[in-house]
């Protein structure tokens, strides 16, 4: 065993955080405030660098009207100055929200609705082999009833479709079950590297 002592700080931090599993201690709170602080500080540095690479570089390239964007950008901090001025930040926010909504919305019809619908238009009978036909039927049925579940007003009045929309819940449960089963990979994948770090990088076993 030949521990790599230069890694002692992250090792202590790692072990300190795992004390939360037993009890919330002062050590844990210290560590959390420490690394949240360093993360926030990092973000501030990135913000300044990014203002340089996007904004200042634009102005340096001769597009002086982008100075107006600097004014709007500074207005985003208006909410720190009390309720009297906080509404000023709605102007930069409205530019952000407006353009984001525009570019997202214009892509949605093709990316979500048309492409996904086209992929659902599958031949139910007469496909290449019976198994494909069966699969196509299952895809269509699960799609149809799951979507029907998410209707709130028209189809759900008494006497219209009765309990049929609730069939969708069974397919949705299958979807969420698959999601749950798959997410275990993520949880394990977040945990294993920490143990690898302790054993392989620090203890060098």
């Amino acid at each position: 065993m030949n521990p790599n002592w230069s890694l002692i700080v992250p090792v202590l931090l790692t072990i300190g955080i795992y004390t939360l599993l037993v009890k919330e201690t002062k050590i844990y709170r210290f560590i959390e405030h420490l690394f949240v602080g360093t993360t926030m500080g990092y973000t501030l540095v990135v913000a300044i660098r990014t203002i340089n690479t996007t904004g200042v570089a634009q102005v340096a390239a001769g597009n002086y009207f982008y100075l107006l964007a600097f004014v709007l950008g500074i207005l985003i901090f208006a909410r720190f100055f009390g309720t009297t001025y906080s509404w000023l930040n709605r102007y930069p926010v409205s530019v952000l929200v407006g353009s984001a909504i525009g570019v997202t919305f214009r892509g949605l019809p093709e990316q979500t609705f048309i492409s996904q619908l086209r992929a659902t238009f599958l031949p139910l009978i007469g496909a290449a082999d019976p198994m494909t036909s069966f699969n196509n039927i299952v895809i269509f049925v699960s799609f149809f009833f799951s979507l029907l579940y998410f209707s709130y007003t028209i189809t759900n009045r008494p006497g219209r479709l009765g309990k049929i929309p609730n069939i969708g819940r069974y397919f949705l449960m299958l979807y969420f079950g698959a999601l749950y089963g798959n997410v275990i990979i993520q949880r394990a994948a977040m945990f294993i590297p920490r143990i690898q770090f302790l054993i392989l990088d620090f203890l060098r076993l």
Partner: protein
Amino acid sequence: MSVILRKTIPSIVIGVLAVWMIVEYFTTVKFFTDIGTIFRNFAVIIAAFAVALGGLSSLRFHTQTIIKRKAGSWEFSAVLVAAIVVMTVTGLMGWLDNPIFSYLWNQVTVPSQQTIYSLLMFYVAAAAYRAMRASNLQAAIFMFTAIVIMLMNGPFTQALIPGITDLGNWILTVPQTGASRAYLIACNIGIVALFIRVILGRETGIIGASKEG
């Protein structure tokens, strides 16, 4: 007047920008693209300023805690503020080439953030013990699917149980695809309705405005 300045004009800005972007997408008129490009570059620069918002509002909140000497938490706030200040100052002096910034980033921030999220492994195992019960048909379907996917994802069980890969892949690519597609479309219908309400100026909560302005 104040309502116009505080609420109406920002709503109009949102509507105009959004419609502009949409129109630009559907035409080949160069004029629309040129102006649209300028709008987008504007948004990117403003977004760069907005990146600082989190750090600054955290700084503000914790400085206030320190000033008020809020019992039991101001000491921790002091740690946080000190960390922000040190990190920002050293970061501006050379980014990752600065040894202090580089050390705080590589040896403090990255390992701690990873460790904190790795705690979820413990909670997911504990919750599985308490929660996953086949108490009715829906819960049974939920549990059965989860178990099949887990058996397929663990390399050991995948190699051990014949046919589990086929069954798992069938579930993922056939019934799951249909249901998740429906879920996606349902969510996006909601988003479309939200977008149209915002464009029409009927949903001002999104920029933080109440009914009164």
